């Protein structure tokens, strides 16, 4: 599999993968220090999956993600300030401090939620694809879900609906070999999640999830199919999660085998850097990208730290379009 597109695209893929990695490295360390509340699920090791998939999308295409929510928006093109501010629970966060680490969903980038209820994005993506179809737009909707999520009824129903209605949807199963502490083979029947496609009469594609170009190519083919009205595709990116299911929890619950080292040896960013260098990209250009991203991350953290927390009344916003009335006794003691 060789690289696709022009050099700028390739550098952009590298940039987005690095941006995810560095953003999360920072997030993990400040989470350990207690600066980020709640649970933090990192995407380290899986960057090629998200970036490859999103680089095959247009800006106005839709995307639905998961609890492992940092990678997808950055892959789709989000800037870091509102994401970092969200991690810190600030009012300037992309979700105004309502969502936090599991929900870094940037609707301006076509995201329709990074939903932390496993599998729940399936129907949403089918619905967004239906909406695009009904509006006569040639947008597609891409649904990221995990290997573990493939066992949920919601994923099945979303895929069946998309297939039977030939909706412009792409289902990307990021198979990182585990759902929390459970190996995929202990939870997911069948050899590959992609094999499920056969039952829906749609293409099922398996792709090396550590190869960002390969992922982009596979997804692009699915996107073309979808835009052409030929219906959905199920793509399985074979990838790997480096860190524990959620970080800084005291012990790694993941029952790793000897293949752990092989996976780390095939780090998607290292691999891509090597490919770019081999293809003649100057090392200095990549170093410059790395350095620029380091600055972006620092900037985003400064921004987040300087931002204000939401005021209490905001807890009553967004249940509905209009703010809820605030009970006196609650307000009095807030």
């Amino acid at each position: 599999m060789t690289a696709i597109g022009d050099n700028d695209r390739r550098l952009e893929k590298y940039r987005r993968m690095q941006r995810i990695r560095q953003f999360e490295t920072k997030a993990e360390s400040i989470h350990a220090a207690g600066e980020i509340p709640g649970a933090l699920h990192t995407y380290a090791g899986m960057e090629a999956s998200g970036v490859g998939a999103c680089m095959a999308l247009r800006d106005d295409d839709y995307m639905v993600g998961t609890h492992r929510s940092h990678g997808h928006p950055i892959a789709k093109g989000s800037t870091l300030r509102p994401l970092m501010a969200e991690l810190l629970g600030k009012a300037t966060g992309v979700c105004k401090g309502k969502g936090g680490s599991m929900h870094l969903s940037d609707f301006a980038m076509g995201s329709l939620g990074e939903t932390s209820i496993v599998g729940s994005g399936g129907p949403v993506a089918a619905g967004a694809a239906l909406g695009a179809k009904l509006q006569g737009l040639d947008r597609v909707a891409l649904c990221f879900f995990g290997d573990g999520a493939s066992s949920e009824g919601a994923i099945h129903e979303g895929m069946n609906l998309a297939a039977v209605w030939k909706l412009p949807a792409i289902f990307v199963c990021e198979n990182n070999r585990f759902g929390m502490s459970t190996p995929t083979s202990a939870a997911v029947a069948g050899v590959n999640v992609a094999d499920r496609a056969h039952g829906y009469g749609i293409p099922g594609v398996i792709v090396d999830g550590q190869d960002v170009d390969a992922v982009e190519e596979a997804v692009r083919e699915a996107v073309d199919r979808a835009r052409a009205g030929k219906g959905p595709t199920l793509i399985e990116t074979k990838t790997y999660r480096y860190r524990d299911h959620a970080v800084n929890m005291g012990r790694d619950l993941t029952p790793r085998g000897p293949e752990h080292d092989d996976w780390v040896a095939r780090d998607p960013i290292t691999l891509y850097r090597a490919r770019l260098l081999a293809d003649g990209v100057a090392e200095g250009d990549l170093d410059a990208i790395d350095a620029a991203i380091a600055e972006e991350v620092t900037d985003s953290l400064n921004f987040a730290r300087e931002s204000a927390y939401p005021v209490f009344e905001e807890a009553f916003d967004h249940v509905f379009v209009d703010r809820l009335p605030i009970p006196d006794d609650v307000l009095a003691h807030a």
Partner: protein
Amino acid sequence: MAKITFLEAIQQAQAEELERDPRVFMMGEDIRCNVFGTTTGFVERFGEERIRDTPISENGFIGAAGGAAMVGMRPIVDATLSSFLYPAMDQICSIIAKSRYIYGGQAKLPLVLRSCMFYGNSNAAQHSDRPYPMFMNMPGLKIICPSDAADMKGLLKSAIRDDDPVMSFEDGTCWMNKAEVPDDPDFLIPIGKGDIKREGTDITVVAIAGGVNVALKAAKQLAGEGISLEVIDPRTLVPLDRDLILRSVRKTGRAICVDPANRTCSAASEIAATIVEEAFEALRAPVVRITTPDTHLPFSPLIEKPLYPSVERIVSAARRLVGAVEFQSA
């Protein structure tokens, strides 16, 4: 104005809003064949793209309504019977009710989720639920549950135009009831406003859905005995028109809540709790709940029917309350 049934009111509301707004479309199992008469002529008029028969996967298509709404559509989902909502609780509770909140207002979910409460017809426990209290406990869902054709039409139209998710619980016992319903294509009943269906002075009866018609019959009967019931239909359960209820109780000093749902944590419980919390000083007697007990519904008709709120139960509660007052004030 024309006299139409509750079902025809649903049909009209949908047709008018489908006509008015191209973003409105419908989904549901077997809606094209118009089983209950709420989609008469829709396929011919609005086409198969906008009138969609779905696979039998409530979680899938109800969640898809959420997704479609997020990208600018205004879906009406017909989930057939309220008992079929359970398989979709994942998408209703975690996506539809919460997406706007969790993403800090980025998402908007203008969708209507209709279902019929199909009880009293010997369809047994898996088909006969009235589960709106469950959804009242879940923030982020507006809930309408009208008891007559005019309210049905006006509220459903408001629901379709509303920018929040609205669940419409349609009481099967009201289906064939007729009422004068305005033809005005902008006839709307505001969500969140209750209605006094009959004025009275002695006891406030807050009745839900089909319970309203039972309460009105009881009121008629009791009028002959000199007991005057004020029958309030909240029409909307979320938001609930607490002010209207409290104003009435402050006037009458007594309250009965009539609710076809199961008793524990019912709408009746919520209304009774509101009354004792906010209008205690006005209360002259216990607040009585007339509900379906915490049984499931049996198939056999002779043992099913007496489980629901009845005229007799309301009448005897009312007599007792009025008596209780006399006793108490003696």
